């Protein structure tokens, strides 16, 4: 699947952006990218991607078979503008499922970068033989990303009420959205 990359898109404002898998050499660019994500949003990440040591280890042990991170990179200066990661378990019981996590640089939101990354992930999931793509969004924090997923035919399949706590200790719902690939393919 790596041979299909990079893929170029033109964002709504005309910015040329390249989608490609993360490589080890991205350590510094990734650290800079995540450092610019508001702390309120970083709070909900399951990994501390601004921790240089953690990031280095994460990159060094990366196994594309289970963790497939893709970045949207600005073509003129190589800055990372957005990232999406596909998580796929090695367990045969849930090998047909991938979980997505997406993050877009605050200054580049509303350019549909998230939508292109989600679409790219769905296409990649098809190539991997995945049947179900799952994305989780924190209510009131990641609503824009949830809306982008909805436009790409992700359906809300559940809400985990008061599942996460924000930095202020306030409970928030976690919205689970699913794109069933296999069902759609048999519609013809």
């Amino acid at each position, binding site marked *: 699947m790596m*041979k299909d990359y990079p893929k170029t898109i*033109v964002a709504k404002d*005309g910015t040329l952006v390249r989608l490609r898998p993360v490589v080890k050499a991205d350590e510094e660019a990734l650290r800079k990218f995540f450092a610019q994500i508001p702390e309120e949003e970083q709070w909900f990440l399951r990994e501390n991607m601004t921790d240089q040591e953690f990031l280095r280890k994460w990159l060094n042990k990366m196994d594309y078979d289970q963790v497939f991170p893709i970045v949207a990179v600005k073509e003129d200066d190589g800055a990372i503008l957005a990232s999406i990661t596909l998580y796929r378990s090695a367990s045969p019981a849930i090998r047909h499922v991938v979980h997505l996590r997406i993050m877009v640089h605050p200054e580049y939101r509303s350019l549909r970068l998230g939508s292109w990354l989600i*679409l790219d992930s769905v296409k990649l999931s*098809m190539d991997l033989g995945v049947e179900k793509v799952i994305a989780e969004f924190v209510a009131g924090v990641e609503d824009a990303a949830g809306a982008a997923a909805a436009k790409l035919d992700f359906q809300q399949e559940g809400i985990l009420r008061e599942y996460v706590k924000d930095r202020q200790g306030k409970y928030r719902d976690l919205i689970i959205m699913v794109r069933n*690939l296999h069902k759609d*393919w048999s519609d*013809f």
Partner: protein
Amino acid sequence: MTLPSEASNDSERHMKIVVEETHKGTLTFRSHCPPSFIEGLQMESGLGHFAHYSSIIPNVEAFETIARNKAGRVTLALIDPNLIVGYGVCWYPDKEDRWSALGDLMYEMAAVEVSRNFRGLHVGRRIMDLTMDDDFFEDKITYMVGLSWHWDLEGKGLTAAQYRRMMMDLYSLYGFREVYTNEPNITLKPENVMMTRTGSRVSEEDQKRFRYLRFGIKQPK
């Protein structure tokens, strides 16, 4: 398999012919078929209308029309005496088509199809071999658009995702790569695909114009 040979007739000077023996009989592949050659041929029964699928080219007359158009190309796979068992057709984009904004730079590999009764014999591959074996393409951005509602999933026994990958693997042999676009038909379903091949003589400027046009921008920054 015989080597391609140039036809002697001047009007058919670009025609290349390959003959191949298969367990279904002798197949003859001809590129650049002119209207006069197509007249009198018939579609084999595995091309046509089925419950969940219809051939993109409905009848022989359609091939004649394509061959008459400016730079319209028809490559046929034939079995004796006069049956079409597969075809490849290409042309310049229609005026209504987004890609026509770049004029003759753009050229569409519009369809490659093989009869249900002749699949698994590499007929599609031979059609592509003959069609793409032409210096003409070095001045073009050649593109193909795969829309899943045209695919014979039932006949192939494949899911749309598998069919998409099969098409991508075939076209990638000829230098095509998937590209993204916001063209509405292509974005309707994620399994839909656009692939392009950039000819070796296409300028950087033209490549840039195409890159932006894919996203509906006619005047690049």
